[in-house]
């Protein structure tokens, strides 16, 4: 099979997880699917670079993380301008009413700095191991664990269950 066919078929299977990761990173459903669209374009365009012995999901997740970072950069200070309240409202607008807990969680996620949010998204939402997340993010494992610990503290503080 041609490598671009393999990538395309792999992407079809990966789409639900990619959308979940994008939702955790971008927050709003519409932004998340726009991110997914960019990721698919990049992955298809670079399919020749993918080595079949490498896991496709990690390769695509790395593209997703970089695309998300590119978009944040393009928006300038977007992540600071994006007030958690607005994030919550946008999530509530985006579809069916969410349980209060999930709304609070979406707000808490929106308040995380990007390098914390991506670790939460990869490890806690996508279930990657610390090693895998370190590879995707191209940082040492110790950086993953320290960011994760700080992100957890922030999330719990926002959710009001830090006893």
């Amino acid at each position, binding site marked *: 099979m041609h490598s671009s066919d393999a990538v395309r078929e792999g992407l079809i299977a990966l789409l639900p997880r990619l959308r979940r990761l994008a939702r955790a990173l971008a927050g709003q459903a519409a932004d998340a699917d726009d991110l997914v*669209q960019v990721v698919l374009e990049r992955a298809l365009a670079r399919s020749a670079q993918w080595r079949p012995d490498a896991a496709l999901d990690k390769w695509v997740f790395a593209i997703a993380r970089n695309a998300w970072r590119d978009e944040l950069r393009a928006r300038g200070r977007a992540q600071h301008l994006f007030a958690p309240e607005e994030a919550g409202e946008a999530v509530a607008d985006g579809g069916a009413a969410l349980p209060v807990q999930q709304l609070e969680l979406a707000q808490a996620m929106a308040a995380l700095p990007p390098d914390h949010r991506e670790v939460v998204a990869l490890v806690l939402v996508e279930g990657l191991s610390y090693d895998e997340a370190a590879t995707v993010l191209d940082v040492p494992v110790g950086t993953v664990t320290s960011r994760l610990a700080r992100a957890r503290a922030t999330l719990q503080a926002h959710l009001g269950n830090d006893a």
Partner: protein
Amino acid sequence: MNPIDDDTLQAYVDGELDPAEAARVDAALAQDEVLARRVRQLQALNTQLRAAFDPVLDEPVPARLTAMLQPRATPAVTLTVVQGGRDANAGRRRAPPRRRWLMPGAALAASVALLAVGLWWGRAGNELVRMRNGEPYAAGVLGRALDQALASEPDAHAPVAIGLSFRTADGQICRTFTVRTPPARAGLACHTVAGWELPVLSPSAPAETGELRQAASSLPPAVQAAVDARLRGNVFDAQQERAARAAGWR
């Protein structure tokens, strides 16, 4: 023996400890209520995150995303909607290069444009797209054209030109269209109970004078791909198109 610190607890709830270390934590938790409460907190947060984002896995994937992963077959649709009085080549201008759409920057700009388009057109008091639950729907003259206009009875002065109409494998009726007034857009609209949903809306070069009557093969690649992904069987002929309109596009 090292004390059990927060990093160890975190690795414990994330399943990152080797069996011996995990057993050591287990033993400590049985005796230390403070540690045990801390672990329950960490586990609760993990559960909450999965509960918040796992439902995305069960959501239907937007058609514009799945359409991107269809094999790039040669366009199945080559019907010329309206034969102009001009020579055949003039009506079949080359499609814009596909790669332009695939460039990340251009695609991002297009996505942003899609989101902005409701605002842009809305500001002119001539809203063509309305966002509903995060999905774009046709409004205004675009909605009216999709409801009423027939490709077999083209109006060269109408702001919206209808291209192909066809029924998808799911039984839905979809129609391609071109908006002639700036900002020029081409797209695919599919009829739902809530109105004309717009799975694809793509920038299109403004039609040149005399080129308004577009052949289907001149659709932007993104629109063409969306058509290819949905089309089963034939596009409607004039009679079928009229019958579909009479039936309310159901």
